């Protein structure tokens, strides 16, 4: 390009498409109401920390068969502008590449390992591989981007269908070193079979961002949300909200979600 930033000329939406789209919208007689509209909104609470936070859960011992990767990202029925976080299963090559970071030779037979969760999860810098696996008889391990660990929280129960770890970790430092422009929160939860999905979003002074939808596999669900700190003036208070639903689309009691809603004070960003 030279001379100017030359944009293509504006166009009018072709008349037949213009009419077709409007007709299509208006002919939808029954309002489409997603199940998530029934969800209770969670009031934010204040916390002092401005660091990015990850709540790391553990591995569902009783849910192993659910970990078989499907061929495509899951279909998600949720609010109108929700964004799926799950971008599909990791390929064998990707899994092999990740295993090498554990010191495992991917050319060896892998059937002695058990994979619970091996998915590509969306993030601010593009998808990251997230793996939860067991290395019998050794520990269970997880890996989310550059973050890894082998802590094992308690198994979910009917009374506590979503479990996380009590100790928050700073994912911004662990995973997003070198990208200080982002604030990110993420977590790996261990969930009961009754949990259909976990949704998370950031509320801003201009209105909430879309819900990001995390889908369980193998008894795990990895959720993440983020924003660019430059989008907000330092000191701006945003909210982080999570909610979860069962297979019938009914909201799960917010009190059972390990990470309560919270206020995030933007640490950096523009002061203009």
């Amino acid at each position, binding site marked *: 390009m030279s001379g100017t930033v030359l944009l293509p*000329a504006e166009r009018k939406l072709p008349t037949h498409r213009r009419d077709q789209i409007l007709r299509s919208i208006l002919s939808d007689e029954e309002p489409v109401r997603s199940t998530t509209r029934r969800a209770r909104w969670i009031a934010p609470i204040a916390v002092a920390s401005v660091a990015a936070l990850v709540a790391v859960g553990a591995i569902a011992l009783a849910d192993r068969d659910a970990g078989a990767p499907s061929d495509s990202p899951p279909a998600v029925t949720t609010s109108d502008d929700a*964004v799926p976080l799950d971008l599909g299963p990791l390929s064998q090559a990707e899994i092999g590449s990740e295993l090498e970071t554990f010191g495992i030779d991917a050319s060896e037979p892998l059937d002695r390992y058990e994979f619970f969760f091996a998915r590509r999860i969306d993030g601010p810098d593009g998808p990251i591989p997230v793996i939860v696996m067991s290395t019998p008889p050794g520990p269970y391990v997880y890996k989310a981007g550059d973050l890894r660990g082998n802590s094992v929280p308690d198994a979910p129960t009917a009374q506590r269908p979503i479990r996380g770890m009590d100790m928050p970790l700073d994912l911004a430092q662990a995973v997003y070193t070198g990208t200080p422009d982002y604030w990110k929160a993420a977590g790996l939860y261990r969930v009961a079979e009754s949990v259909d999905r976990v949704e998370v979003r950031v509320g801003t*002074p*201009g209105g909430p961002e879309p819900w990001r939808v995390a889908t369980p596999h193998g008894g795990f669900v990895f959720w993440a949300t983020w924003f660019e700190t430059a989008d907000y003036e330092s000191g701006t208070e945003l909210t982080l909200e999570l909610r979860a639903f069962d297979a019938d689309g009914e909201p799960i009691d917010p009190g059972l979600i390990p990470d309560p809603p919270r206020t995030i004070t933007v640490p950096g960003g523009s002061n203009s």
Partner: protein
Amino acid sequence: MHEKRTTQREGSVVAESDQATWSRLCVGDPEALTAIYERHVDTVYNFAFRRTASWSVAEDAVQATFSTLWRRARGGGLSPLRLTSARPLLLTMAGHECANLLRSQRRRARLLHRLRPSPDAADHAPRVAERVDDERQMSEVRRAMRDLPRSQREAIELVVWAELSIAEAAEALGVADGTVKSRLSRGRKRLETLLGTPVDKEREA
């Protein structure tokens, strides 16, 4: 920016503001949806094209944006319009829809990448070729924009390209007017440095 359009009613010309039309939309009036659609569909269409560099995705974004608007209207979930124009809100919604569509498109692209292209797939009709040229050109602009923070990209998209006022863009982005101005200024400078060209809205005839 005041959005008023004239409509013929009982032989007289009646000007109705976006705010008035929006009030009717809030109670599920299909005529109000039609009016808002007719006023802003091309703005949304061109905004979505500049965001996605694809005319076909832009059509999908139009459908998704107004479908969402209508669902919210019929579900009683629309708030009264605070600004005089519905454009900032519609472009914000369109931005979300574009993000969703681009994600879907990337997934499809990964799948298609594995398939061999059909020799019969090419369509050399002039109109199609023009659209492809547009998309190639817009992709170049988007590539340059990638080096800007999202906040600066959005300011340029809304103020320079979609011609929102500073106040409208600030409302759409949920920030102060001054923040939009500074983002715009920084974005212009950075983009001009990257491209060695001005970024004012200049289009092909």
